[in-house]
């Protein structure tokens, strides 16, 4: 554990070497998520509600998704950009070290500028919490935390999945964006608004709905069933199959090379 902490510190020190560009990049990245925020706000200013959700309620969903995506990006960036790790031979280097492979990949890349996105999402979350008309009891706050936690783990799983695909092909990775960036982007609205079929897809295939739509229903008091609030934990279980696929991918790399 101490070793991983040291590896993390290393990245921190690397980033501090470029203070000026760190600041500009932070702003740049913040603006990226500002675009979506602006689009959501403009649409909601015009329509007021969509499928019964108001602007603050949608923003609750938005901020949960952006926060968990960003946290996953912070810890799992090495998976998200795994094609580069493979292409430039960093993965061979990782295999040459007497340390477990997965944590090394987690720490292979790190972009701390991304925290700026989390800061923005945090501000939006506080605004949304105060305006959503929800009475913030302990159980609801707990569910909100579970949503962010479950989301972080689910997105980490998606990033790992992305990396697994890299073991098989370095072409056509664009399609993986549908799963990673796409899940985040579509998930900025409660996924129920895309219709019943899509809700099923995002419940049983990629558990986006488990970390936002169902627990949101509990927070907003549309259902009294606390089990809905616990669903993010099941969403986090998505990480388990991804982990085994990763093992499979590493074995394949060992027999095929890059």
């Amino acid at each position, binding site marked *: 554990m101490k070793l991983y902490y040291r590896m993390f510190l290393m990245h921190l020190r690397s980033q501090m070497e470029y203070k*000026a*560009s760190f*600041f*500009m*990049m*932070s*702003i*740049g*990245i913040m*603006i*990226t998520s*500002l*675009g*979506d925020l*602006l*689009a959501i706000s*403009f*649409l909601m*200013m*015009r*329509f*007021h*509600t*969509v*499928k019964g959700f108001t602007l603050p309620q949608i923003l609750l969903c938005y901020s949960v998704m952006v926060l968990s995506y960003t946290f996953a990006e912070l810890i799992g960036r090495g998976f998200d950009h795994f094609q580069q790790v493979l292409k430039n031979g960093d993965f061979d280097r990782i295999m040459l070290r007497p340390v477990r492979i997965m944590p090394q990949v987690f720490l292979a890349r790190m972009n701390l500028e991304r925290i700026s996105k989390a800061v923005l999402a945090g501000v939006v979350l506080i605004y949304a919490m105060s305006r959503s008309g929800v009475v913030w009891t302990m159980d609801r706050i707990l569910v909100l935390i579970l949503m962010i936690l479950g989301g972080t783990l689910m997105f980490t799983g998606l990033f790992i999945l992305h990396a697994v695909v890299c073991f098989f*092909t370095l*072409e*056509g*990775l*664009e*399609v993986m*964006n*549908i799963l990673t960036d*796409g899940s985040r982007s*579509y998930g900025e*609205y409660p996924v129920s*608004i*895309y*219709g019943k079929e*899509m809700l099923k897809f995002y419940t049983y295939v990629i558990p986006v709905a488990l970390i936002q739509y169902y627990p949101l229903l509990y927070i907003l008091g549309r259902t009294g069933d606390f089990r809905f609030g616990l669903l993010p934990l099941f969403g986090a279980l998505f990480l388990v199959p991804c982990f085994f696929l990763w093992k499979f991918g590493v074995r394949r790399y060992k027999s095929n090379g890059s």
Partner: protein
Amino acid sequence: MRAALGMLRMRFIYSLQYRAAAWAGVMTQVFWGFMETLLYKAFYASNAAAFPMTLPQVTCYIWLRQAFFAMFILWSVDGDILDMIINGNVGYEIIRPTDLYWMWFTRNLGSRLSKVALRCGPVFLVAFLLPAPFGLSLPPNWVTFFAFLLSFVMAVLLIIGLCMWIYILSFYTIASRGVQSIVGLTAEFLSGSLLPIPFMPEGFQKVAYLLPFAQTQAVPYLMYSGYYSGREMVMNLGVQLFWLIVVIGSGHAVMKRALLKVTVQGG
């Protein structure tokens, strides 16, 4: 021109080689477009009266944007050229007996066309095959279609004209990646690619239409579905032409001066 065509061919073969990439690109664009039409359908169901355009017009807008996605990314510049400008090797390029502005212009056009050529076909095909409220429909009449074509051609030339300004500005200053993403995203939002411009608030719309970015995407897409007609159509084409002349004219002139500076300094 022959060189540009040859390069286009090379690029095309090059991108064909990556077949998984081509299929993946098409699938990604289609899925993304499909999800977005579902989103607008939900808004339409919530409050049809607040819709600033018809639902089929919105889906047309989305599918055109998906099909031509790679054409209108402002920052899709040629890295070699940027490097050349930054490290001063551009001095050697000046020796050639061609107008550098137009050479780089065609090069950029070629690379954008080759990126889109492979992908737009299948995206169109899928979009046309999708049932009525989700799919792409034909333009209402021939006049609209030709107006769209004209507007589209101007939009392509305009985005490259804007892109040329990125080269030109690199002669004077190197934009950090932070600045790049700020400018890129502002331009993206104002071009109406994240949110169709008619959905923006009144005041914002006015500003967006006055700037050249909306002319690169929103205007041709709106033109296609018959959102503009009669005087409005002509006026919008006029504004596009105006920006086209201003952006390319000024770019050409300023680049000449920038190149002079390079030669004087000796590259």
